[in-house]
């Protein structure tokens, strides 16, 4: 019974990781930039979700606006910070990204206060008793359901629509894609928008699960998501998904059974090192 609960808790956590890491892997696939500031958009989404929901009373509106604001925030980061640096070596963009991330944490603190914010009437807190002693918050179940459906829709769009195929083409060979008339800038904008919107969406979920958003809430996801995309084989979308869920479950068991020797937040990296020793290309990369 405990094992089932731990798997379920792992999948809940893994869903959040998946939403955050997906944007990161899209950016890496496209531009070879380690986009640390991605986690700032996750935090931004959390704040916007709480603010909108508290003001309007509608959680759905909170999710929608949070995803939009984070999405446009991501596009702005790309246009203002990364695009001018694309001709420079990748570490220059990485430095810019870390700077952006630290600056955003402090900006959140200055604008919204150090105390963090909470929902005045947190939604989806109902208890679902599933029998055999299993009991979850409605929000916990919906995190998994919504993550699975959103990612399903995105996968379909990427495989079936013109713009989705253009994205794939740009990832595999930007110059060739461009010569076929694909606008690189447009594809990159869309990628940043979608990836960042997912992070913002995840931010609202975490805000709901903890009933707390704080300036520093992105600090753990910022580095853990990097470990996840490396595990997933840098730039591979299905690999990232699998790695995120797997890490969620490993952490759930690790917290309980390895807690004495290994910090929960170190498990991701211990696992990463173990995997890279056996498969340097990541768990799910093709070659």
């Amino acid at each position, binding site marked *: 019974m405990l094992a089932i609960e731990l798997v379920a808790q792992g999948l809940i956590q893994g869903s959040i990781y998946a939403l955050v890491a997906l944007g990161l892997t899209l950016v890496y696939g496209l531009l070879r930039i380690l986009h640390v500031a991605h986690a700032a958009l996750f935090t931004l989404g959390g704040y916007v979700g709480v603010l909108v929901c508290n003001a309007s009373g509608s959680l759905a509106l909170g999710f929608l606006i949070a995803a939009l604001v984070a999405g446009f925030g991501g596009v702005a980061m790309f246009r203002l910070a990364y695009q001018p640096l694309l001709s420079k070596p990748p570490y220059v963009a990485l430095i810019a990204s870390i*700077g952006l991330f630290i*600056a955003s944490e402090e900006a959140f603190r200055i604008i919204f206060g150090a*105390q963090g914010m909470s929902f005045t009437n947190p939604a989806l807190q109902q208890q679902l008793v599933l029998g055999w002693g299993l009991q979850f918050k409605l929000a916990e179940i919906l995190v998994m359901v919504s993550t699975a459906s959103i990612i399903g829709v995105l996968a379909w769009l990427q495989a079936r629509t013109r713009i989705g195929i253009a994205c794939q083409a740009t990832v595999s060979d930007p110059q060739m894609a461009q010569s076929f008339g694909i606008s690189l800038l447009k594809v990159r904008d869309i990628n940043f928008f979608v990836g960042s919107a997912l992070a913002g969406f995840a931010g609202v979920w975490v805000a709901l699960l903890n009933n707390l958003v704080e300036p520093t809430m992105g600090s753990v996801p910022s580095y853990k998501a990097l470990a996840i995309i490396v595990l997933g084989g840098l730039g591979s979308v299905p690999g990232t998904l699998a790695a995120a869920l797997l890490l969620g479950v490993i952490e759930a068991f690790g917290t309980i059974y390895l807690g004495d020797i290994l910090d929960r937040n170190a498990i991701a990296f211990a696992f990463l090192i173990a995997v890279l020793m056996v498969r340097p290309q990541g768990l799910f990369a093709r070659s």
Partner: protein
Amino acid sequence: MKFRTARFSLMTVAAAVALSTSPAWAQLKMGFNVPLTGFAAADGKSALDGAKLAVEQANAKGGVAGQKIELVVYDDQAVAKEAVPSATKMVDRDKVVVAVSGSYSGSTRAAASIFQNAKIPYVVAYAIHPDITLAGDYMFRVSSMGEVQGRGGAKLVQNLGKKRTVLITVKNDFGQALAAGFRDAAPKLGINIVNEYEYAMPDRQFGALVSKVKSDNPEVIYASGYFFNAGPLVSQLRAAGITVPIIGQEGYDSDKFIEIAGPASEGTLITTSLDRDSTEPATRAFLADYRKATNAGADMVAASSYTAVSVAIEGLRKTGGKGGAALRDAIAAGSYDTPIGKLVFNDLNEVKKDIQVQIVKDKAFRRHSVISDPVLLAPPTKAK
């Protein structure tokens, strides 16, 4: 390196602001290290508000020996590497006569030896690590040490008539000191610790841990942490259907805890030093003045910082503004009527006081009981 320079420049800006806003005629400088940025910034704000209130009140009454007191504020981010340069600057550049810690154990421990070597009395508000007062005779602490609070927690479990306890501990000086005290007292009080868990400071999601605690089937949970951990933790424990009493400590002591955990916070017990339902005039006056000054309810951090600054000012009054050994002896000899109780220092400059147990009732901390056990709650004394 990137981190350091960014944070460091922020710190200097904060310090510069603090220096520039203080009045030109201020003469008696009191150093104050407090986390204004970083993970502990929320507590830092309460601490600074409490400290400012004490200084304003003293200055409104004419200051000390005709001199106004100036609070020299440094942001230490509650980390040791920021506390050392701050303390050094207070000593060498600002030439403070006395210093107060409104910060956590990590940074306070690091600053302690610097003040001790400079023979500047350092009054610690709410950092609970034992090493702080062991740094020397210029160190004072107005709150109960972690171990003492942990023993108080065990006593509360006994008072509730419970035995099977699960310990959930935040992995830092604060949590580990509490757990050590609890473990130490548990066998004497017939308490059985069924299981122990630790979590890291940044953790907010406790799903796995909660599942395991549920399978341990305890009668009571003794969980340390700060309101930003404890709010989500208590809410997640309740969401999983765990209904047994949860005992927290000073770290929970903020209205923010109740806001985060919402209805799940009802019935949570905490051992702390501020009694909201106190009838003591010093406590009542502080609660009212703090609300007037900040438009917010006071918490333990604010009350302790107010107390630490007041103790330092009281000492300065006795020496007529002189520092050094005279001030050390004056502070050590005094007895103080403060919002967190009547305080007298022992030979290790620790205070002996009752532990206030508060319970969350109708979205507010109210009095539950007072733990008064002079033997169990005795602070450590100087090693003989």
